């Protein structure tokens, strides 16, 4: 029996207040995870709502004896994936169009101060990761979950999580090093 058991059982019995209580308990976890994966506050709020609506719709399939967090993480990851897939379907052609319009200007140097901003660099690097690596990085570093917990959420072996974390980290290192060297390269052309 977990601490969520009474609330899940109430929700299964049709108690809307129980849904509100579970929302109050897990809203930050779900919202911050969705926000870190999608980088879009509106999308994160939509995903937050959808996750709890799914919880209500499928309450009878949720095991009330187990903690709810892994179930919510899994739904959040799935909804984030769906959102990113839909967005990319529209964004990629538009991105190509913009590339054609602005051409080399896209690669103009940004202000040095901005480039030195560690947080911005890191976010950009995380954005560039494949979805599978990005999710593992977020769950591991932001949510402080163990490899086993992440494996349970994603429904894959621990070895796969380790591998994704390793390659995600290595990709981040490369991306960050590339960005760090970029201003020097820019100065050669200015």
């Amino acid at each position, binding site marked *: 029996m977990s601490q969520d058991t009474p609330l899940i059982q109430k929700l299964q019995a049709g108690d809307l207040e129980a849904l509100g209580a579970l929302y109050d308990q897990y809203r930050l976890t779900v919202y911050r995870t969705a926000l870190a994966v999608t980088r879009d506050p509106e999308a994160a709020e939509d995903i937050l709502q959808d996750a709890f609506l799914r919880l209500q*719709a499928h309450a009878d399939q949720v095991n009330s004896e187990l903690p709810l967090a892994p179930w919510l993480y899994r739904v959040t990851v799935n909804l984030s994936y769906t959102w990113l897939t839909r967005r990319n379907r529209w964004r990629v052609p538009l991105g190509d169009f913009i590339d054609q319009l602005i051409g080399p200007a896209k690669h103009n140097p940004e202000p040095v101060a901005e480039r030195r901003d560690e947080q911005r660099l890191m976010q950009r690097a995380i954005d560039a990761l494949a979805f599978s690596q990005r999710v593992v990085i977020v769950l591991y*570093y932001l949510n402080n979950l163990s490899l086993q917990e992440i494996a349970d959420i994603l429904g894959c072996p621990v070895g796969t999580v380790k591998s994704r974390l390793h390659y995600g980290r290595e990709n981040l290192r490369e991306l960050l090093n590339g960005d760090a060297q970029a201003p020097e390269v820019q100065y050669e052309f200015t």
Partner: protein
Amino acid sequence: MNSREACPPRDDLDARIRQSLRAAYGNKCPARGVRRQLMDRAAEQRRDLRKLALPLPDWLSHSRTARPMESGWNHLDYISLLSALGFVGVTYAIR
């Protein structure tokens, strides 16, 4: 099981990633209106789910053999009638 020990940090990159993610998202909260909107949608979803789960009529909620015989006919009577009609139809077609 805590598998964190199985993947120890090798340099300050781990600390940088953790620090950046927490600085960027660790204090972010959804808007206050999201809860109210969720509860409204949840109530609406509940109504929709109830509509989908319409109660069965009394006579359907009984097992087939135990259904009340409102018209005095049971399913065997209907099967017999259909068989008879089928027999007549086939005979007529042959002739």
